[in-house]
């Protein structure tokens, strides 16, 4: 296990910069999530770390050693691919044993380690099957076992849950997280799914257009977004933004509530007149879409808590007094960067 450091990594494909200067520190044992929209360069960055791509410039340091020119097999990192990349002609046992065979581990030791990894992931009973005889969830475990069997310096996961159905994904998320905490391997996890990112990461690096926009704990990313991109990328529905003289005022939909639900508290509140256009009933909450007075062109969402879920009082077409606590307001400057008040 080892820390992974990158220093100003740039990767160009022709004229296009896929990765545009990423500097990131992942301490030993941390679960770091790279979150970003498709095509933002997060997968390319991961491929650079494991050595499948060579960066155009910048340094990559794993466990204190610069590994820029070291081939993938000598870096000691393991990677789990989106499609798992299992070897279809091998049994599960041989799939898991493959990384050990390449490093000429003695046969008895291979057997022991395969048994350990299979046991860890609860796939002992599948060892003699072939990948095509496995379900999606089982394949994912086999891929994870194969990645872990040689106790990698770092574990790289490239959207490992995107091929699973929603229900399985939730439990797999838990499993990977628990399991990473138990083994303690430095893990870099790439996803475009913010639920995965928020639920799993010790820290999240939000990436857009090949650059890191913000690195922080899930709470920091959510509560204190560094810029407009992070504010609107993280959170469903995303943060509301009101443009005013070129600057932006942001607040989360769950903080935008009917006036009578908010007590003044310390710091005071800002009141808005809100016209509801339509609302969505989601069982545990109600999402309301509308506009606030003075900002007629910008759709604003409010997430109403259970107390208001079934209530008929928020009727479409009517103006209602709404408010946001001042402490929940976020301000962004003309160029999108976070600023303090005004």
């Amino acid at each position, binding site marked *: 296990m080892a820390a992974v450091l990158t220093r100003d990594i740039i990767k160009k494909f022709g004229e296009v910069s896929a990765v545009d200067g990423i500097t990131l520190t992942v301490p030993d044992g941390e679960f770091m999530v790279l979150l970003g929209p498709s095509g933002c360069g997060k997968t390319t960055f991961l*491929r650079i770390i*494991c*050595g*499948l791509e060579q960066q155009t410039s910048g340094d990559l340091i794993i466990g204190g050693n610069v590994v820029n020119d070291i081939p*993938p*097999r000598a870096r000691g*990192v*393991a*990677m789990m*691919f*989106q*499609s*798992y*990349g*299992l*070897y*279809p*002609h091998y049994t599960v046992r041989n799939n898991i044993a*493959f*990384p050990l065979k*390449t*490093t000429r581990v003695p046969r008895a030791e291979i057997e022991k380690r395969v048994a350990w990894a299979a046991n860890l992931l609860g796939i002992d009973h599948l060892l003699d099957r*072939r990948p*095509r005889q496995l379900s999606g969830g089982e394949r994912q475990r086999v891929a994870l076992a*194969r990645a872990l069997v*040689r106790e990698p310096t770092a574990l790289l996961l490239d959207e490992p849950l995107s091929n699973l159905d929603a229900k399985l994904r939730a439990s797999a998320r838990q499993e990977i997280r628990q399991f990473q905490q138990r083994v303690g391997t430095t893990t870099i996890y790439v996803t475009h799914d913010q639920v995965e990112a928020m639920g799993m990461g010790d820290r999240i690096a939000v990436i857009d257009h090949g650059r890191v926009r913000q690195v922080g704990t899930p709470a920091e990313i959510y509560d204190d977004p560094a810029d407009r991109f992070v504010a609107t990328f993280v959170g469903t529905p995303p943060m509301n933004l009101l443009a005013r003289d070129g600057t932006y005022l942001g607040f989360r939909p769950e903080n935008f509530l009917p006036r009578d639900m908010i007590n003044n508290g310390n710091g005071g509140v800002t009141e808005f007149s809100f016209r509801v256009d339509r609302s969505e009933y989601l069982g545990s909450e109600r999402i309301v879409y509308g506009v606030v007075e003075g900002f007629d062109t910008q759709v604003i969402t409010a997430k109403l808590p259970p107390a208001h879920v079934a209530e008929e009082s928020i009727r479409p077409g009517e103006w209602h007094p709404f408010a946001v606590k001042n402490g929940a307001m976020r301000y962004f400057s003309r160029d999108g960067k976070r600023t303090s008040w005004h």
Partner: protein
Amino acid sequence: MAVIAEPVAAKPVSRFRFILDRREVLGAILVAPAILYVLLLVGAPFLLAVYYSVSAYTIYDPSWHFVGLSNFKQIVQNPVFIDTLENTFLFTFASQLLGLVLGKFGAFLLLRPFPGRKIVRALVILPWAVPIALASVAWEWMFDSLYSVINWTLIALGIIDRSQAPNWLGNPHLAMLCVIVVNAWRFFPFAIVVFLAGITSVPQDIIDAATVDGAGFWRRNYQIIMPMILPIVAIGLIFGIVFTFTDLSVVYLLTNGGPVNATTVLGFQGFQVGIVSGDVSHGAAISLFMLPVLFVLVIGMLRFIRRREI
């Protein structure tokens, strides 16, 4: 108010109106030409050949007199036929092996991007596309005893002396080598296409996974890519073996079976005996001799492929 479906006065529809929408009818119509073709142009001649091989039919005495397996007995007792059998096996397997090796290397070279790759990919198909009659003439000149460009090059490079220049098509062993090389040359573009199709069908994720798992070039090739494309290669090999086993064109055009039957193969001998000499019954027996062997070989390979299917 309850809505009740009004019975509509149904117009009688011809039962043939949607006949082409029926899967089994359309399928039969589409497959029929191919089946007809096979039955008429392969099935009928084949049955005819089977009958010829157990009759005493010659073009001079076209009698349908049934003689049992005596034709087969006679050809087996002929020492030239045994040589022919050996030649056929050597010719087939050596040229296939050479073709496969060339094909694999070619495919790997053509996978890498380089300027002009598209043109090279197109050109590489040439040996396969050029009429074999034309190509054989070119090869014949290259192997010519006096004007061989190969010998000229070897002499110019100082590798051999003019006095010991090999007579490619005149020496029995070299003549066999020549027909093998020419046949492999003819086959290898096909092998390249098969390998290219196979290798490009291996998902990049699997190759990447192997790379990260610590496999170098050779291990990736022989433990991951080759086993995965084996079914495709085996199909290509079946084609190659069947076509080469029954082929006579290269031998006919290049050596005419010589020198002294050194390059005679089954197809060629069947043609010589059955068509040129007019002894149709013995020609048919020679041509059909390898059918059971090929049949078993192909069935065996197909079963192997099915077992390996991923």
